């Protein structure tokens, strides 16, 4: 099973190295990979039916609880089948669709990487692993949306989708981490056992909201829904695959997966249905007034995602069943419709439904395919969509608390859906006028085989719902709900409330369609008035605001004045240093005045006076020479306190420094009073604070207690092992010879730097 993910990633790499002879078959060759996995998954059905699972577990980073733990159960299976099954057809479709685009190599890589990550997502049994795949799908989605990256608005849409989903992903990650802290594990299976303690924990609500943030943003729930219509900038195969059939369902999957852990609470059954219901209605409503075929489909997708979320939120056995069926229904018809939209776009040069028409006579196969899918979308028999809608109504009616509201919302949304279905079917295929840019003709085999099979799938499953229920739905339901249920899917339920609702929906949809000439302008006016605020614009404004804020911020903090940077560093160091100095316990400082030697005091006085001279002098020469005096004074101190070598070195270096300075000094500018008196005083204050702190440190340096200084080793072994009496020298050239080598290297590099700098202009 872990192989299947690997195979898809390998196929991504492989797609780059397909020899040019085979290039005409590229889509076909690549589609063999997901198809193979699809068949493999089908063979696992008998095993999963008895609540069996396929599982592999390897530890990856056990320290943080991240394991490569993959698990195939009924719920994963549904998603995995959708991903690989639809994925195969998408590749075949894309093979034709992407011809004429530049960089199709990249396109296949992105698509296969996405497929692998999405499969990994639904197979992960470890939350952290799931998060990794989750983000991978987000990134590949970003790359695919931005495929035509040379256009400004494409880039904008891509970045918007990325930011929204990544923001949600981060929320989700923090939710996961909190969940991990509460339960002590990231393994979903182990969490299920602790469900009741998690639900009663004080962190339950924050955890739920954070995780929902991830699920809602990924599955385009209100108010995050706006990125999905933008994502339609992607090529049509991508819209069909990522943005309707698979990736946007990841949020649904996550909530279904976590239902045994977090579900069955008041919060779950309130927040999720509310958001889901709102999304369902808003999506369906906004779909009515769109003109772009893909935009209509995008909004109906939002509505469908809302429906799914609502069903997950209702959290009864029936609603879960409804969700799983509708998931399959929607993936089948919406994948089909997006591909059909892409074909129409290719053949007519437009997706504007005001221009399209008469295609039934010119593209008959495409029309049949599309009509099958539209029937499913409208929820009409004998398609699977009908069963899906029926069972949704049933679930709505049996909602624990808010059956009335939920059912009303559901019926209104479905009426809109019926209307949209009829509307698309009529406008695009049967209307008697056509104003497209090209003369349309029937598409080639590549274009209709994939959508055709998917649409037929909707029909066949509608005719044989029992098999679907037994083999696919039931094992999945066993995962979500602990108890076993008897699921019977039927085409004909008899004359009950649900059937009446269905009839009402259909009639409503037809009625609205007949009234379209009055209604659409009305809705457009309403939209203009009430939905004038565009979320995507608001989002862009928000991002721009953040950028402006960051820019302003950077200007203040990173102002470019070196001395103010230094000032901040000095002040912080001094403040922390003083704090530590005052708080350290050994505060007594021995100050044996009688030990103060006259020589030292004299030298100290000389150094101090020379320092003052350097600071105050206006002549560059005076400053440098008095700085030399300071250096010589320090050399004398070294000499007095038994550091002969230091004294010699200091004398040499100081002399050299002064000589170099004197050589350069007349090429350097004169001292000028650049600072005001006030800033001089301020700097002097800062300098005194730092200096005073260093004095304190120096006085306390004696209190350092080093255990067994290694100096004794050097003293003892210098003559015997280093063959020298001057221990300092022996340390430098023998014991620590490598340090000295490093030092020489530093000097050499500095010398090279100096030479290079001085020679810049000569060449």
């Amino acid at each position: 099973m872990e192989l299947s993910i690997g195979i898809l990633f390998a196929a991504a790499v492989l797609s780059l190295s397909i020899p040019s002879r085979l290039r005409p078959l590229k889509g076909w060759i690549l589609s063999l990979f997901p198809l193979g996995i699809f068949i493999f998954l089908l063979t696992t059905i008998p095993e999963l039916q008895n609540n069996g699972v396929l599982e592999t577990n390897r530890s990856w980073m056990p320290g943080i609880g991240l394991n490569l733990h993959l698990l195939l159960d009924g719920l994963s299976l549904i998603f995995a089948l959708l991903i690989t099954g639809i994925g195969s057809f998408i590749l075949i479709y894309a093979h034709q669709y992407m011809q004429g685009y530049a960089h199709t190599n990249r396109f296949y890589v992105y698509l296969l990487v996405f497929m692998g990550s999405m499969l990994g997502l639904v197979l992960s049994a470890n939350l952290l692993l799931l998060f990794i795949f989750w983000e991978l799908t987000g990134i590949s989605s970003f790359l695919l949306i931005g495929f035509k990256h040379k256009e400004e608005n494409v880039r904008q849409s891509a970045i918007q989708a990325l930011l929204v989903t990544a923001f949600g992903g981060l929320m989700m990650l923090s939710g996961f981490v909190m969940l991990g802290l509460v339960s002590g594990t990231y393994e979903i299976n182990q969490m299920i056992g602790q469900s009741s303690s998690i639900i009663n924990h004080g962190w339950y609500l924050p955890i739920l909201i954070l995780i929902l943030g991830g699920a809602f943003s990924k599955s385009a729930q209100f108010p995050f829904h706006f990125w999905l219509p933008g994502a339609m900038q992607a090529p049509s195969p991508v819209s069909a695959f990522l943005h309707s059939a698979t990736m946007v369902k990841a949020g649904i999957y996550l909530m279904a997966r976590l239902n045994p852990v977090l579900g069955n609470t008041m919060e779950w059954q309130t927040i999720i249905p509310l958001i889901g219901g709102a999304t369902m209605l808003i999506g369906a409503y906004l779909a009515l007034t769109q003109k772009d075929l893909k935009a209509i489909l995008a909004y109906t997708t939002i509505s469908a995602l809302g429906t799914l979320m609502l069903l997950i939120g209702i959290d009864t056995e029936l609603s879960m069943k409804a969700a799983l069926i509708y998931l399959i229904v929607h993936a089948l018809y919406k994948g089909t419709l997006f591909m059909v939209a892409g074909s129409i776009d290719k053949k007519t040069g437009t997706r504007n439904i005001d221009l399209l028409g008469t295609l039934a006579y010119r593209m008959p196969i495409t029309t049949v395919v599309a009509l099958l899918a539209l029937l499913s979308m409208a929820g009409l028999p004998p398609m699977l969509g009908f069963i899906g809608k029926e069972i949704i109504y049933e679930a709505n009616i049996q909602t624990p608390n808010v059956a009335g509201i939920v059912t009303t919302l559901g019926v209104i949304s479905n009426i809109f859906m019926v209307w949209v279905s009829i509307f698309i079917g009529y406008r695009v295929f049967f209307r008697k006028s056509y104003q497209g840019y090209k003369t349309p003709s029937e598409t080639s085999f590549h274009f209709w085989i994939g959508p055709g099979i998917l649409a037929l799938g909707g029909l066949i499953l509608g005719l044989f719902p029992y098999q679907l229920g037994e083999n696919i739905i039931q094992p999945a339901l066993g995962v979500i709900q602990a108890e076993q249920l008897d699921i019977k899917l039927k085409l004909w339920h008899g004359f009950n409330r649900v059937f009446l609702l269905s009839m009402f929906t259909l009639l409503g949809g037809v009625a609205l369609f007949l009234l379209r000439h009055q209604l659409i302008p009305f809705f457009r006016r309403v939209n203009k008035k009430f939905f004038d605020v565009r979320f995507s614009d608001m989002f862009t404004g928000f991002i721009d605001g953040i950028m402006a804020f960051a820019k302003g911020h950077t200007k203040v903090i990173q102002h470019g004045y070196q001395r103010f940077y230094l000032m901040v560093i000095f002040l912080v160091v001094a403040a922390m240093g003083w704090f530590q100095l005052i708080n350290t316990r050994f505060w007594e400082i021995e100050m044996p005045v009688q030990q103060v030697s006259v020589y030292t005091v004299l030298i100290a006085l000389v150094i101090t006076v020379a320092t003052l001279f350097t600071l105050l002098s206006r002549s560059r020469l005076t400053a440098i020479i008095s700085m030399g005096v300071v250096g010589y004074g320090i050399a004398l101190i070294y000499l007095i306190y038994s550091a002969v070598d230091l004294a010699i070195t200091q004398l040499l270096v100081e002399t050299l420094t002064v000589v170099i300075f004197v050589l350069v000094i007349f090429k350097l500018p004169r001292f000028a009073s650049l600072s005001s008196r006030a800033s001089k005083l301020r700097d002097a204050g800062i300098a005194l604070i730092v200096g005073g702190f260093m004095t304190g440190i120096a006085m306390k340096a004696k209190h350092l207690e080093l255990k067994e200084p290694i100096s004794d080793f050097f003293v003892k072994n210098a003559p015997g092992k280093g063959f020298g009496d001057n221990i300092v020298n022996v340390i430098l050239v023998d014991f620590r010879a490598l340090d000295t080598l490093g030092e020489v290297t530093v000097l050499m590099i500095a010398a090279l730097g100096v030479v290079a700098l001085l020679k810049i202009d000569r060449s």
Partner: protein
Amino acid sequence: MEITLSIVIGVLYTAGVYLLLRRSLVKLILGIIFLSNATNLLIFLSAGLTKGEPAFAQKAGEETARQVADPLPQALVLTAIVIGFGIVAFTLALKYKYHQKTGTYDLDQVKQTDQS
């Protein structure tokens, strides 16, 4: 005697910090020299001071063991002095070149890394 040297160290640090905060190019370099001297002295002091007993190994004929100065900080400081010199030389060349190129000696003019 530490007290005297501690004060000297403080004075040197004060001077170094003050010079670093000036706007003039040359004063910046002087500040670096002061800071490096002060730090050397601090390391030297922190090991404890021994008067008149350089760190030489004992001769074979000597009977009583002498307490010689600690050789390790001396070796460290010796390295530091030399490297400090390298830094000063390089900075000097850098600032000289900078002045030559731009004609300014005011550090407040040095705000951008890009040429614009």
